[in-house]
């Protein structure tokens, strides 16, 4: 009985730790791998994802924000939210802290200028960076569960 209770507590603690690990991995690209001791991969993933995001900003891309009349904007939002804290910081940068909070979710501006040549490229870099970070989160999950080295 005591052993079963101990086992349940251990499982609960592991589950909480895994949740925090995945959240950290999503918020800061590469942090999950860093915590798990995969330092080289952590640095490479961080550099790649941040580079993609910064390129998106420099090319005047638009971060995905949900628009009620445009269902595809939800997919773009999902991809961009994958960037974690970078997405949040950029939103606050563009809308101000008050604007980001009061405008959530449908009154946010994703920035960007569609009249500029780099707009579509910038969007692509944002989506790619976010989706890569989501794959990194899945990789952290696999490593933490022992399914991958």
């Amino acid at each position: 009985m005591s052993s079963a209770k101990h086992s349940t507590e251990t499982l609960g603690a592991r589950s909480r730790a895994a949740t925090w690990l995945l959240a950290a991995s999503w918020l800061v690209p590469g942090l999950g791998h860093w915590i798990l001791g995969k330092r080289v991969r952590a640095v490479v993933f961080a550099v790649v994802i941040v580079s993609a995001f910064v390129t998106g900003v420099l090319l005047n891309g638009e971060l995905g924000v949900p628009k009620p009349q445009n269902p595809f904007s939800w997919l773009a939002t999902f991809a961009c939210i994958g960037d974690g804290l970078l997405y949040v910081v950029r939103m606050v940068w563009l809308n101000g802290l008050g604007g980001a909070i009061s405008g959530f979710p449908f009154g946010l501006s994703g920035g960007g200028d569609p009249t500029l040549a780099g707009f579509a490229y910038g969007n692509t870099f944002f989506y790619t960076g976010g989706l890569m970070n989501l794959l990194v989160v899945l990789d952290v999950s696999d490593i933490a569960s022992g399914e991958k080295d």
Partner: protein
Amino acid sequence: MDHLLLMCWHAILVSVFFAFLWRSDASGRLKLFLKTLLIMVVGSTLLGWLMFPFP
């Protein structure tokens, strides 16, 4: 703005990412990086040429 340069930069980032995600040894990473990069850059350029006659 150089479109080809941007495409190559995008291909480099994605190739490095998948090389480190899917391979754990140095030679495997290098091979996958080069293969992915080549497929994306050459494939996109060829596709661009094929699409050229269409409006």
